[in-house]
């Protein structure tokens, strides 16, 4: 397996763990963002960290998006008694629609086969979404999405020069 393939596999596995942890039955785009922010040593993680988006900051931004969106429907999350259900550590977690879209966009960004997708391509795949949970969470956190795209592309160009 190529270095890129191995990294992609590790990040998807981390995304699955994030999905299980949040009680989701499938991996969504937001879980891939959490995984990228948490996976050490990649250029995608560096780009996110430089924008103050560590794993916990991403989690906080996603939680805020959840609360804000529920409020549109008149639901105040603080009023809902939400006991945490026990997660199933063995649960098979497939890819949800939003995560598949991220992968499709990452492939397009990479212009290569899926085995050649680097974490920064995955990040670009996430940042290419204009609607949905991830761009809303980033906007609420005051993050300039297009600036992140620029930085991720610069990081990729630097990697390719090496």
């Amino acid at each position, binding site marked *: 397996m190529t270095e890129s393939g191995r990294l992609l596999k590790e990040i998807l596995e981390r995304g699955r763990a994030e999905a299980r942890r949040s009680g989701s039955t499938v991996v969504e785009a937001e879980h891939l963002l959490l995984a990228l922010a948490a996976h050490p040593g990649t250029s995608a993680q560096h780009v996110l960290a430089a924008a103050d988006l560590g794993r916990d900051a991403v989690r906080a931004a996603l939680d805020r998006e959840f609360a804000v*969106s529920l409020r549109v*429907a008149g639901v105040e999350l603080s009023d809902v008694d939400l006991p945490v259900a026990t997660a199933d550590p063995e649960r098979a977690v497939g890819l949800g629609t939003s995560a598949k879209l991220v992968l499709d966009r990452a492939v397009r960004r990479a212009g290569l086969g899926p085995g050649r997708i680097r974490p920064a391509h995955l990040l670009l795949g996430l940042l290419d979404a204009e609607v949905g949970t991830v761009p*809303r969470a980033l906007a609420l956190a005051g993050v300039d999405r297009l600036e992140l795209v620029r930085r991720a592309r610069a990081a990729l160009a630097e990697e390719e020069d090496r």
Partner: protein
Amino acid sequence: MAGAGTVTDTDPADALAAVAALRRLGDRLEDSAVESAMRAGWGWPQVAEALGVTRQAVHKKHAKRLIAAGVALRRRDA
């Protein structure tokens, strides 16, 4: 029909995000409510009927998780 403050006055992005968030909230509530009921000794048929779904559906969705969580389950047809 739509008066001030109805969801139709809302930015479509906000309205659609609210739908997505409500679905997620519903899933989370279901997980915790089913777990609480089973811990309180409810059987699958009652839980299923209360949710308005089939017993098979609720069992398939939650049994493995609850067994892993160590919840003492009553017999499936109890």
